[in-house]
C-alpha cells in the first residue's frame, strides 16, 4: 500500500455513501441467483451462442473477412449474417449452421461434453506441436490455411493437471 492514499472525488464519495456495505446476506442472494442460472439450460445455451458468435467475429477479423464476403461464401444474404451475428431468434443455430459457418472461415468446430468439474482448454501457439501425446489426453493438432496456429483441444479433470500439461506443452 502506498503511504499516502488519494482522496476520492466528491461524486464518487457520494455514490459510495449511498451504497450499503457488502453483507453476507447480499452475497448469498447473489450466489443463489448465480446457482439458479447454472441450472438454467436456456441461459447456458444463450451463453454458448454468444461465445460462438464472438469466436466467429474473431475468425472473421483474423481472416480479414467482412460480412458481405461471408454471406457470399455461404450463399446467403447479408441480412442473414447480420441476424446470425445478432443472435436473432429467427436464425436456427443448428449444428449444421455452425459447421457451415466455421468452414466458410477455414476453421473447424469441435464439441466436447464435459463433467461438471472438468475444463476444456484450447492451446494456441505459434510454433507447431510435434511431440506425440502419450498421456491419454488425445491431442489433436491441425493445420490452418496460414500454417502458423495449431489447435490442441484438451480436457482435464483438475486445475493441477492443467498446470502440469500446460507447462509440458510450452516446454515441448
Amino acid at each position, binding site marked *: 500500500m*502506498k503511504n499516502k492514499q488519494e482522496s476520492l472525488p466528491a461524486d*464518487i464519495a457520494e455514490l459510495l455513501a449511498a*451504497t450499503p*456495505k*457488502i453483507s453476507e446476506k447480499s452475497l448469498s442472494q*447473489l450466489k443463489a441467483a448465480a446457482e439458479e442460472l447454472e441450472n438454467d439450460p436456456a441461459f447456458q445455451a444463450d451463453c454458448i451462442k454468444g461465445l460462438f458468435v464472438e469466436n466467429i467475429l474473431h475468425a472473421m477479423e483474423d481472416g480479414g473477412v467482412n460480412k458481405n464476403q461471408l454471406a457470399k461464401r455461404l450463399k446467403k444474404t447479408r441480412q442473414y449474417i447480420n441476424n446470425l451475428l445478432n443472435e436473432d431468434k429467427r436464425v436456427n443455430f443448428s449444428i449444421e449452421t455452425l459447421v457451415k459457418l466455421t468452414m466458410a472461415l477455414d476453421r473447424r468446430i469441435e464439441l466436447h461434453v464435459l463433467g461438471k468439474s472438468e475444463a476444456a482448454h484450447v492451446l494456441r501457439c505459434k510454433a507447431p506441436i510435434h511431440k506425440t501425446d502419450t498421456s491419454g489426453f488425445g491431442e489433436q493438432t491441425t493445420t490452418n490455411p496460414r500454417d502458423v496456429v495449431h489447435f490442441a483441444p484438451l480436457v482435464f479433470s483438475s486445475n493441477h493437471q492443467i498446470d502440469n500439461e500446460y507447462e509440458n506443452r510450452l516446454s515441448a
Partner: protein
Amino acid sequence: MKIELHEIPGVPDLVGNFWKVRVLAIDEKSPAQEILKEWSKKQKNDYKKILKALRIAATDKDCLNPNHVKRSTNPKHGGKIFEARAHRGHARLMFFYSLKNKSLIVCTNHYWKGKGFQDHAFDACAKFQQFFENNYAL
C-alpha cells in the same frame, strides 16, 4: 481506505479465459455488486444478459461484439472505459481493464438506459479507474 476486488457469483474464472472479472469495493462498498444484486431480484432478464456479456468479455483480449461490450467514445476517457451491455435491454455495467497484478476486468458502477446520463456513468468509471490504479496495493 480499504480497496478490494471481489469475484462475481455466476462469472467464474475459467481455464483459458484471458481476464478475471471482479467488482471493485472501497471500504466494503461496491456499487457494482449492489446493482447486480438488485438486478438479480428485480430485473432478471437484464441480469442474465449482463452476466452473459461479462462471461464473453472474459474469454478473449478484446470483445468484438458491440452487442455485449461497448467502449466509451468520449476522448476524455482515452478509450479505456467500457460498458457491458444487456443486449436489447436497459442494464449497463461500467468497467475498465487492468493489468495490475493480473489481467482483470474491474466493474465499478452502472447505468440504466433511459435514466440519467451514460456519459456521467462513464465519467464515474474513469474516476474509479484512476483511484484504483493509483491506490490499489498489489
